[in-house]
């Protein structure tokens, strides 16, 4: 019998990972092309979670935007609000009190601690260490409790305000926070040791997803990803905003450039953040109020432009604010670290195996809600519409 059909098997197969996928915790499509087990190319597709926050900011007042910016991302809400608030302070020429600056640092470092612990827990889960994931998350709860004591909420703190912070702490709370931090420190040192010594972790992370020093800057990688490739950048050190110029700490840099180095940067930074927070709490300036009187803040802003940077847990986060002399900003531009780290990550995957893909992606600490930015989708009617945050809060949307 003659051949009647020929089935062509493509040399390279297309492997869509996402936008909803067990290996990705974020709505993003990584279109991987594999030759057998080896990845030869990856394309990143975005646009699954864009919320139009920059446009929303133009129709809200300078002050209301503090709450909107704090909701760009749940994990990084304090740094977003801090960066935007400082951009407003630059426009107004306002300087917060020393006590407020120290409290801001403590709040932001608490956020870094729980964020770094979270991504390391996720990496453990991606590697198959379910028990380790559970243990890290259990210890992470302690820092969430600490954040609640400081800001009043375990996740979205709404702690920043123009000229200071929204809540102060007394001596009892300060001692409580220091005790919690000392307990967490012991656990983080233990986890760091695991990442240094465990054979499975080393086999899955070392030499996987290598990013060279020159490519780190050429492709604009920032934060722990760049520092894991030997790039000594940290806006806490260069801009010395808030109290970062008064608290002793060191920039963590690893030269290896692989997924392991990126995770080690985060463990070392977690220990640095704990020590910084303890120092800040023990040296909290007294005699000044950290909470400004909101009634004395100007309603209208002077004409001008400002640009603030903050070292978020995922890297350099920037806010540009332009005022034309009214009550609303003319333009707000947000550039989040994941916007650079994820879209440019396509150079990291080729040459590695399909099983390495989620590990490399996870080592970048991806955050799509940061990267894209309120639409409401009515699934029954199949329509999308925009609503005011106030209406959402009052549950006017059915």
């Amino acid at each position: 019998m003659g051949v009647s059909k020929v089935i062509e098997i493509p040399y390279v197969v297309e492997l869509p990972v996402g936008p909803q996928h067990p290996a990705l915790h974020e709505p993003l499509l990584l279109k991987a092309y594999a030759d057998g087990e080896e990845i030869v190319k990856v394309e990143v597709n975005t646009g699954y979670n864009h919320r139009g926050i920059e446009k929303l900011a133009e129709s809200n007042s300078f002050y209301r935007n503090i709450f909107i910016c704090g909701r760009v991302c749940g994990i990084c809400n304090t740094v977003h609000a801090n960066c935007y608030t400082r951009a407003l302070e630059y426009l107004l020429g306002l300087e917060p009190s020393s006590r407020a600056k120290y409290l801001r640092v403590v709040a932001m470092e608490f956020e870094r601690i729980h964020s770094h612990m979270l991504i390391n827990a996720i990496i453990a889960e991606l590697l198959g260490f379910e028990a380790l994931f559970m243990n890290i998350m259990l210890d992470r709860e302690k820092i969430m409790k600490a954040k609640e004591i400081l800001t009043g909420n375990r996740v979205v703190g709404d702690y920043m305000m123009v000229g200071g912070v929204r809540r102060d702490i007394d001596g009892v709370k300060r001692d409580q926070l220091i005790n919690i931090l000392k307990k967490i420190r012991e656990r983080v040192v233990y986890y760091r040791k695991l990442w240094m010594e465990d054979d499975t972790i080393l086999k899955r992370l070392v030499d996987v997803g290598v990013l060279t020093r020159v490519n780190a800057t050429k492709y604009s990688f920032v934060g722990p990803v760049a520092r894991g490739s030997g790039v000594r950048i940290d806006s806490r050190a260069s801009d010395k905003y808030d109290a970062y110029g008064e608290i002793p700490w060191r920039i963590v840099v690893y030269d290896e450039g692989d997924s392991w180095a990126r995770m080690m940067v985060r463990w070392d930074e977690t220990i640095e953040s704990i020590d910084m927070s303890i120092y800040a709490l023990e040296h909290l300036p007294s005699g000044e109020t950290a909470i400004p009187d909101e009634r004395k803040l100007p309603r209208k802003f002077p004409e001008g432009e400002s640009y603030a940077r903050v070292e978020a847990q995922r890297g350099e986060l920037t806010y540009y604010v332009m005022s034309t002399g009214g009550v609303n900003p003319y333009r707000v531009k947000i550039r989040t670290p994941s916007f650079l780290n994820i879209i440019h990550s396509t150079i990291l995957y080729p040459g590695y195996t399909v099983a390495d893909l989620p590990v490399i992606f996870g080592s970048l600490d991806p955050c799509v809600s940061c990267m894209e930015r309120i639409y409401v989708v009515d699934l029954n009617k199949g329509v999308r519409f925009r609503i005011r945050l106030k209406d959402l809060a009052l549950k006017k949307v059915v």
Partner: protein
Amino acid sequence: MSSISRLSKLRKFFVGEGVIKPNRKYFVFSSDNIRLLFSELINTIGYENFYVSTIVGTDLISENKIRLDYYVVILPEEETVVFRTYLPRDNPVIDSIVDIVPGVLSSECETHDLLGVVFQGNQFLKRGFFVSKDIVDKKQYPLRKDVKV
């Protein structure tokens, strides 16, 4: 040596300068010189010593212009300098630099999708990079001041 003084070779491209608060210097250049400017920057300090942090596009509707700000971080000082240029609002076209500075890819794609700036030579430009299909279908650029979304 401060990072600004290391950029002295780039002065020939600048037609104006100013400061964005708190202390970020900006230099105005002609949009025709974008590729020459960044090529000179690479030749002067090398890829290891700078990265493009972001491109901020602003619709200046009253002036009928679109302003583009390239925020460049100079290393190791980590000092931010801004290269600023203006494009006509009815035909906002500028040469892409994605082939010489690959780190601008995301910013060029975003600025195209939200403001309608065309970066000539960037083959990755597409509508729907961020915005939803209904806005793409209406051919709207949401960050334009005359667009209500």
